[in-house]
Structure formats: structure tokens, C-alpha cells
């Protein structure tokens, strides 16, 4: 089966006073109906990947190379008119902070109807009908009255539901979720996650779910990709990555979550800070922070090493006994 999303060797460089290499050769392949959890810390390139997928990055200040194919379409070659059909029609996105991502001066119903009218070419009345369906679809109670509500009149969780309704209103094949639960409190978080999962199964969408919270990623993903300094350093099935984290950075991430830590015990943190993207060191970008790194790590790019056919990590120390010990620790 051909993947619905195929990203090959994508690089994104923001040009300007200093050139920032936000993405340095990202490969993502996603099958229909699959959920990929993209994790990494701030500035690792998660959001840039999503925006590049939608070609939302400012063209004047961005240099992009590589290829992006979504449902057989060459996204890099789309012109402005085709892009407008593509965005929201084939691929749509939900944002971290629904209060900011919804237009404050229009009602929810109007915002959804506007998107539907634009993509489906239906009448305004039909657009409103669809808006009502969608609000009911995301389990908003008394949806009819909610159509007339402004974003500031809703609670955070409800706003995020409305945002999801808006994103799914035109039946996209791919949903990009940019930390959709980060701004919500814990009880609402799990409701939104469950809702997203349910809708994803119902509609058979492929989802790229960006988060820095491993707990959230585990909850929703089929596969995990870990990003660091604009590269995917480890990718594999959820089970493989969590049970057998192979890149030292992934291990660091898993160790540094608070879940399961005992009271009074020191939390493990990864020493140091991510490299500056305008002055990337040669070789493995994680080497300066890595306990296992030696001189071979800083010479030339490191190709993915396969642990199993579906699980790979960009680390030279995979077969190394010291690596195995560190993994067991």
C-alpha cells in the first residue's frame, strides 16, 4: 500500500541575518489511518515539519528542499490555488491554543460554515447545517446554541472541540495536530485525546500528533518518531520505542518524565541544552550531551541504524556493549 504521507529528506532553512537550519533531512512515511506521535523538545522542528507539510512557512524567508507527497500529490509543486484546495480539504491542522487559533470576532458556526462553503462549494445554509453536524460530532452538548457562541464564551476544552470540528469539517484524509492538548488541564486533556482517537477511527484519517509529552504520545500513537535538532533520531512502533529506546536521547526523554518517579528521588534530566540551529555541529547533534559519544560521533552524518526492520535510530553506538548497559540501567 502506498503511504498517504511520504516525506523524503526534507530540509527547511530560515534565511535572514543568520540561517537557521530548522529541519535537516526529515523522512516520514505514514500509512492511511495510522497515527504518528512526533515527540521532541521545543525547537526540535516538530511544528516546522507540520507547517512545511501545509506549505505554511513564509516563502520569502524559507528555503525548502526534499520532497513531500500527500495522497500522491507533490506538495512542493502545488501552486497557490491548488494549495488552497489542499489545505483544509485533504490535510487540516489543529493548533495548540484554541483561543488564539479561532477568530475571536466570528461565531463558531460561521467559522465552520465558511470553511465548508469554500471547500465544498455548497450554499451558506448547507454550510451551517454541516457546522451543526460537526459540533454534534465532537460531542458538544446543545450544539445548536453553540453555533452562535463566540470563542471567548466557551471553556478551553469546548474551544478545542470546536477547533477539531472546524478542522474535520471538510473530511480531510490527514490531520495534523500541533500539541492540541498542551494548553488544556489534565482532565480535559484525556477527553480530547479520547475524542481524537474515536474520530480518527471513525473517519479513518492519518494523524501526525505533535507533542512533547510522552504520556500523551503513548496514549494515542501507533508509531513514534523522536525529533532532535531538526532530525528524526529514532522511529519505530510505539511498543518498540517505549520498550526498547535505542537512541540515547530517546532514553533521556523517557527517563526525564515524572510518571512513575518515586517521591524524594532525583529526577533524571538530560544535561546541557540543544545545539543552536544556526551553528549545527558536524555529526550527531546530540553528541555534546551524550554520555556515550566519542570522536567517531562527530564525523559526518549518521545514517539510521535498524534495530528491527520497523525500528531505527541514528546512533553509532547501537551495537556497543556500553550502549546496552546504559539501556539496561
Amino acid at each position, binding site marked *: 500500500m502506498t503511504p498517504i504521507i511520504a516525506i523524503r529528506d526534507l530540509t527547511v532553512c530560515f534565511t535572514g541575518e543568520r540561517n537557521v537550519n530548522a529541519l535537516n533531512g526529515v523522512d516520514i512515511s505514514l500509512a492511511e489511518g495510522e497515527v504518528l506521535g512526533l515527540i521532541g523538545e521545543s525547537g526540535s522542528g516538530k511544528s516546522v515539519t507540520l*507547517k512545511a507539510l*501545509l506549505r*505554511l512557512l513564509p516563502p*520569502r524567508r524559507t528555503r525548502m528542499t526534499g520532497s513531500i507527497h500527500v495522497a500522491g500529490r507533490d506538495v512542493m509543486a502545488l501552486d*497557490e490555488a491548488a*494549495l*488552497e*484546495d*489542499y*489545505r*483544509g*480539504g485533504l490535510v*487540516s*491542522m489543529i*493548533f*495548540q*491554543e484554541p483561543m*488564539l*487559533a*479561532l*477568530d*475571536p*470576532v*466570528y*461565531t463558531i458556526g460561521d467559522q465552520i460554515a*465558511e*470553511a465548508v462553503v*469554500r*471547500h465544498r462549494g455548497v450554499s451558506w445554509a448547507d454550510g451551517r447545517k454541516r457546522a451543526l453536524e460537526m459540533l454534534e460530532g465532537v460531542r458538544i*452538548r*446543545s450544539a445548536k*446554541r*453553540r453555533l*452562535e*457562541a*463566540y470563542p*471567548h*464564551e*466557551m*471553556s478551553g*476544552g*469546548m474551544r478545542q472541540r470546536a*477547533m477539531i470540528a*472546524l*478542522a474535520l469539517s*471538510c473530511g480531510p484524509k490527514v490531520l495534523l495536530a500541533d500539541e492540541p492538548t498542551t494548553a488544556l488541564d489534565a*482532565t*480535559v486533556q484525556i*477527553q480530547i485525546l479520547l475524542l481524537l482517537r474515536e474520530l480518527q477511527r471513525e473517519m479513518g484519517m492519518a494523524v501526525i500528533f505533535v507533542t512533547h509529552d510522552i504520556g500523551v504520545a503513548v496514549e494515542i500513537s501507533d508509531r513514534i518518531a523522536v525529533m532532535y535538532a531538526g532530525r528524526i533520531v529514532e522511529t519505530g512502533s510505539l511498543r518498540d520505542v517505549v520498550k526498547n529506546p535505542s537512541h540515547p536521547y530517546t532514553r533521556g526523554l523517557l527517563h526525564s518524565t515524572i510518571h512513575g518517579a518515586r517521591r524524594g528521588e532525583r529526577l533524571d534530566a538530560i544535561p546541557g541544552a540543544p545545539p543552536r540551529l544556526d551553528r549545527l555541529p558536524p555529526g550527531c547533534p546530540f553528541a555534546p550531551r551524550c554520555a556515550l559519544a566519542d570522536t567517531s560521533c562527530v564525523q559526518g552524518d549518521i545514517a539510521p541504524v535498524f534495530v528491527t526492520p520497523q525500528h531505527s535510530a541514528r546512533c553509532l553506538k547501537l551495537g556497543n556493549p556500553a550502549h546496552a548497559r546504559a539501556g539496561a540501567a
Partner: protein
Amino acid sequence: MSVLADDLIDLAATRKSRGYWGNVGRRLLRDPVSMICAAILLLIALAAVFAPYLGLADPYLGSMIRRLRPIGTAGYPLGTDELGRDMLTRLVHGGRLSLLIGLLPVVFAFFIGTTLGIIAGYLGGVVNQLIMRTVDVFYAFPSVLLAIAISGALGGGLLNSLLSLTIVFIPPIVRVAESVTTGVRSLDFVDAARASGAGALTIMRVHILGNVLGPIFVYATSLISVCMILAAGLSFLGLGTKPPEPEWGLMLNTLRTAIYVNPWVAALPGVMIFTVSICFNLLSDGMRSAMDVRN
């Protein structure tokens, strides 16, 4: 339990769901200063509009023997001007032209300036430079001087003064529109709109306009008072309306010779200009604070 919470929020929302502009209006209604100003302006505007039907004296009918009567003279509640014409009639009739040339240029400048400003702010780059640097050229001149220069070059008359005032007020509105647009452009909902497939035109027309209209509108109302004073100044210099047309600026000009004979009457047109402009200013202040509901 969260279902219950949702229901409660639901109830609260339906009770107060009046929309953004509904809330602004309600807050404005509660502000006494704004309401007084609005009432005064409404009164003056209504008087001006219905001036011919108020049973007042003829604003053009002079009398050589009843010149410069003081305020309170029988038959002339506000006295007479230097040609013996009834001041009350002339002030009421003068409001028609004065309000017109105080409002129209700002309205025109509001439409043109907002359009240019949003285009410059949203598209950025070369387009922005082109529009904003052109605007800067006009900024090189003080607004009074610019109005006089354009009016002088085009010649006197009502239309020309309207045109010159419109040109004077476009640059500041473009500036404000451009700066609020650049502020709104980088917000998430513009990205969200783009991510859902909206084109540049839709985003500017729907999302940007809806969010910047408020601040620009408030700014434009504060320009009305400046415009009235400038218009009065043009008339005063003989570049705007021509005598015997009643217009506050022009009346101030022709009455200035009488300042030693009958200062109270001579000051009346000035009082009108002052009252109207300060009312517009206070009203725009009131609107500015009423629009802060969202934050």
C-alpha cells in the same frame, strides 16, 4: 461530572451571548460621559439636518440697522452677526456644512486608508514598502500645511477642500491600519485560516478586517475633531466654503473684525467647533475603553 460543568457553562453562555459588538454597545451605554457626548452630537446633527424645518429666520437675510446685537436681544436669542443676520439660524445652518466637511473626509480616508493599510500590513515586502514609503512622503508635511497646500493648488470650493482633507487623513489611517494588521497577521487564527485553505483575499477581507476594524474605527473618530478644525481653518483662510454660506469656520473668520465690539457673539462659532470636536474626542475615548471587553 465534566458534562455537568459543560452544561453550567452552557447556561451561562446563553444568558450573555450577545456577541462582541453587543457587549461593546452595552458598556458604552453605561458610560455617562460617552452618552452625554453622543446626546449633544445627536442634537446638533439633528438640528443641522432639519434646519430648514425648524421655523428659524432666514440665514441669509441681513439688516444694516440690526448689526452685532448682543446675545439675548429680543427676536435674536444669540444676537446678530456683522451683517445683521440671526446668529442662531446661522449656527444651526452652519452645522450642515461644518459637520459634512468634518465627517466626509474622515469617512473617505477611513475606507481608503484601511484598505491600503491592510494590504500593506498583510502582504508585507515590496508592497508594504511601496505603500508605506508613499505615505511617508505625506508625513513630511504638517497636516495643516498639507491641507492648505493642496487646497491652494486645487483652488477654493467645497469639493476641493473635501478632497484635500481626505488626502491629509489617509496617511495616518494607513499607518494605524498597517500596524494593527501586522500585529494580527502573526496571530494563530490567521495561520489556522490559511491551514484551512483560505486565500489571501479571504483572510484580509474576513479575518484581518474583522479584527482590525475596531481600533481603526476608534482612531478615525478621534480624527473627526481634527478634521473639523482643519476644515474650519481652510474656510477661515478663504479656501473652503465661500460667503455668504453659513459655515462655522467661515463665520469665525468674518466675525473676527467684531471681536472688540461684541466678543461673545464673535466667539459663538468657535464654541460650536469646540463643543463638537471635544464630544467626538470623548466619544472615541469611551469607545476605546468599551472595546477592551475581549481582553
